[in-house]
């Protein structure tokens, strides 16, 4: 009899979940992993009330878990601080791709599950757009965080996320910019290609020694690399911030022509491409290719710290059109612990943690979300300065980064690049 129960119980749960999609019923909430005080017992304008509501909560933070060093950074830096300062327990939930967290929230919505399981998501771009479009995000909070005063909300690179207004639905965590990585023991700095044009020349003079990541899910850096080529061919980023099909139709043939010219010179003749950053990096480490791509402000520093690249690895950028952007955290509308999520989002902007995230040894590797000029506290300023000096020679010089920095395209182009790249470059139609 006992066994019979254990078999039938899950089946009934599924039934309950199914029926509730048609008519949301309170019964469905029994399937939720955690129940907690609902939103409403704090006032966003009274930060103390948020802190009080958050005390004792567990915040379920859905984070892309593909980098061991980032996971470790989160567990070592934010976990203890949340616990000691605010009495909040951090539950980091690793996801293979942020879209998995998005799907979780969507499925909860379909099943009528409220409160759900997700409190905070590390997010940007199309995933943010998906949730915002489906009206599944907790609104109007980002600029109410006390530490939001350090954020330059007037910066269009920050208040637009892939061309979509952030509108207070998400708060920044860090910044990133596309860079290339090479091994200075194998290549001289003087012979590095410094533009997409010279890259083509270099690649065809050294067949099989260059490749890029396949644009698509998980291949975010590859998409960014291809968009940079698009900027280069069309004379800059300005035209790409708002979507216009005609602009795409005008310039995309030139983009595919460029990439197809590059293709026969690539690793394995462009027959296949690395699927993600880790795969490309290991090709570089194995000396199969001479370049890899990164988004880290620490350049090759974090990978060197983790023993993934030789100590002679260095990062560099082309002279222009290297896309940079911000990444954010967002709170689902059905988050069970919104107060704790708010406190965590605020903690991420704390200058001491912003300083810690750029230190290569800490393993995070992404840049500031805050505008360091807005920080006045002396200890915080000192921490930020100290961190900057630790970037070291594996990082791209800040002036090179700043000179080449351009914003990302509108989200629509992102999908077009990924879809059409498969058709016109990978399948070579």
């Amino acid at each position, binding site marked *: 009899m006992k066994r019979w129960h254990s078999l039938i119980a899950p089946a009934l749960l599924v039934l309950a979940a199914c029926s509730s999609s048609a008519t949301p019923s309170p019964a469905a909430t029994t399937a939720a992993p955690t129940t907690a005080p609902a939103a409403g017992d704090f006032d966003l304008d009274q930060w103390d009330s948020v802190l009080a509501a958050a005390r004792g909560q567990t915040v379920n933070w859905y984070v892309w878990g593909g980098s061991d060093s980032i996971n470790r950074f989160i567990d070592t830096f934010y976990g203890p601080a949340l616990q000691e300062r605010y009495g909040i327990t951090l539950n980091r939930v690793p996801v293979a791709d942020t879209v998995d967290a998005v799907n979780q929230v969507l499925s909860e919505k*379909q099943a009528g599950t409220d409160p759900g399981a997700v409190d905070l998501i590390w997010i940007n771009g199309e995933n943010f757009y998906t949730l915002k479009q489906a009206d599944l995000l907790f609104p109007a909070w980002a600029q109410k965080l006390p530490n939001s005063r350090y954020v330059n909300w007037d910066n269009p690179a920050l208040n637009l996320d892939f061309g979509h207004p952030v509108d207070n639905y998400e708060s920044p965590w860090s910044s990133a910019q596309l860079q290339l990585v090479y091994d200075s023991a194998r290549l001289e700095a003087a012979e590095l290609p410094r533009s997409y044009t010279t890259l083509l020349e270099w690649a065809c003079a050294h067949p099989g020694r260059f490749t890029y990541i396949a644009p698509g899910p998980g291949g975010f850096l590859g998409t960014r690399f291809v968009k940079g080529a698009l900027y280069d061919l069309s004379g800059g980023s300005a035209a790409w911030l708002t979507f216009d099909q005609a602009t795409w139709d005008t310039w995309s043939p030139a983009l595919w022509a460029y990439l197809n010219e590059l293709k026969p010179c690539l690793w394995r003749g462009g027959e296949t491409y690395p*699927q993600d950053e880790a795969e490309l990096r290991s090709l570089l480490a194995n000396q199969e290719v001479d370049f890899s791509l990164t988004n880290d402000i620490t350049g090759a520093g974090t990978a060197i710290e983790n023993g993934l690249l030789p100590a002679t690895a260095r990062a560099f950028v082309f002279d222009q059109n290297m896309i940079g952007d911000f990444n954010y955290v967002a709170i689902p509308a059905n988050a069970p612990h919104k107060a704790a999520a708010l406190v965590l989002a605020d903690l991420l902007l704390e200058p001491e943690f912003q300083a810690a995230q750029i230190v290569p040894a800490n393993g995070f590797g992404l840049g500031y979300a805050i505008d360091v000029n807005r920080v006045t506290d002396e200890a915080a300023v000192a921490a930020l300065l100290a961190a900057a000096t630790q970037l070291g020679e594996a990082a791209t010089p800040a002036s090179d980064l700043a000179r080449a920095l351009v914003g990302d395209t509108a989200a629509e182009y992102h999908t077009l690049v990924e879809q059409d790249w498969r058709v016109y470059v990978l399948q070579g139609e």
Partner: protein
Amino acid sequence: MRRRLSLSPWLSLAPALALVVVLVGASLAYGVAQSLGLMAVIGQNTVSLDAYRSLLSGHGPAGREFWSALGFSLWVSVTATIVSAALALLLAVGLASRPGGGAADTLALNWNLAVPHLVWAVALLLFLAQSGLLARLAAAGGLIELPAEFPVLVRDRYGLGLILHYVSKETPFLALIVLAMLRSQPTGYAQVAANLGANRWQRLRYVTLPFVMPGLLAGALLVFAFVFSAYEVPAVLGVGYPRMLSVLALRFFTDPDLRARADGMAVSLILTAIVLAVAAASLKRGGAK
């Protein structure tokens, strides 16, 4: 001796059946609904066959790859099934005619079953990739100049790595089935045939094969259905293009654009339909015999 239960078998099966029917049935119903474009969360409440239409006509992001993915899936699963069935037959016949060694043979074949597909796929990758162990050994031993000169055996365009994986994994599985049947066969048949003047080949063709064929066919069908629909091995050992149907289905199911889910679900359901059709056809064939 215990009293035999007089309950009808259906009643004793009821808990397990209920679980399967509810779980599979519910997800199937959801799948069909989504493949028809029913996505209440983005306000899509009308049924349409657009996903199927675009797949079958080869249009749209998923459709453009549908036919090549179907062809690739069929190529990999049919080849892997035939090759492993043939090898399993040879292996089992060879082992069965070996005097002694029965338990040791079975153990050697069983050992393979304990290794999950994902583990075996990663092992093959580490071993056979161009930056893998074999390539490094070959380069260190001077057989090739650079590890990258090693032939492309995994993550290749033709699915060789996938076929290699499935053949190495499914041959022992099928061999076990055949071996079990051979061992239950009275040795008398073969001896009678030999007495009547049948040579080795004739004994295999007219005595052994008819005996093991039903089991081998059923096993091969299992292998085909598994290979055709499995996701993890092509995800590890496959390339970006061509992709197997299962990889294509998940790719579109997890697309940030929610409307692409219909495509992913439609691919999954077509995949399921093909497996069911093959199963029905072979059951019918088996029944007719």
